[in-house]
């Protein structure tokens, strides 16, 4: 088990009702962490076009998660 920090943005913040949270997890990737968090936040849907960042760097869904990481979950972007 390791402790990670999570931040939710835009639609995800609305659906989870929180802006950030800290939790202990067995998840080894952002993908696994997201799926785990769907249990805690049942309104979250699939993450098809979502993006993820770790510690303010854009990341892959399969990158390794380390203790103390801050994981940013970005719903599909719509800038421009």
């Amino acid at each position: 088990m390791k402790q990670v920090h999570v931040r939710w943005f835009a639609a995800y913040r609305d659906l989870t009702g929180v802006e950030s949270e800290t939790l202990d997890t067995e998840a080894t990737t952002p993908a696994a962490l997201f799926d785990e968090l769907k249990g805690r936040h049942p309104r979250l849907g699939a993450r098809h076009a979502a993006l993820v960042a770790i510690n303010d760097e854009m990341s892959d869904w399969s990158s390794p998660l380390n203790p103390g990481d801050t994981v940013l979950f970005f719903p599909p972007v719509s800038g421009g």
Partner: protein
Amino acid sequence: MNDTPLFQVSATPIDIPAIRQAMLDTDCGAYAQFEGWIRNKNDGRAVDRLEYEVYEPLAVAEGLRIIEEAMQRFKLKRAMVVHRSGLLELGDSAVVVAATSPHRDEAFKGCRYIIDEVKVRLPIWKKEHYASGEREWVNCQECENPRN
């Protein structure tokens, strides 16, 4: 001129003449500029106004990366992006992209590359306020579990 940040997030209306001024360069024969404007409708729904949420630390870092890529691929002399945050009204510029090059083909292609990448890579989200009073995050049909 060279100390103007190439990627900026602005909470106030974008100063377009200032962008052009920062791009001026007598080595260049071509200046391409694109603006995204707030339209009065999207997917057939009447839009009243619009709100942009920008996660600035990452938007700036990724925005600069896009500019760097465009400058290398298309041999641009210079490129700049300013993106709005906050509340926008119809007709406001949400984003301005500018690119210079000695020749026009590169300026057009570089400008196009930048806006295309900005739209898919930057952590920026648009919430539309409809004439009906509803508000909705754009592109987020799939964010919510359909069983709820």
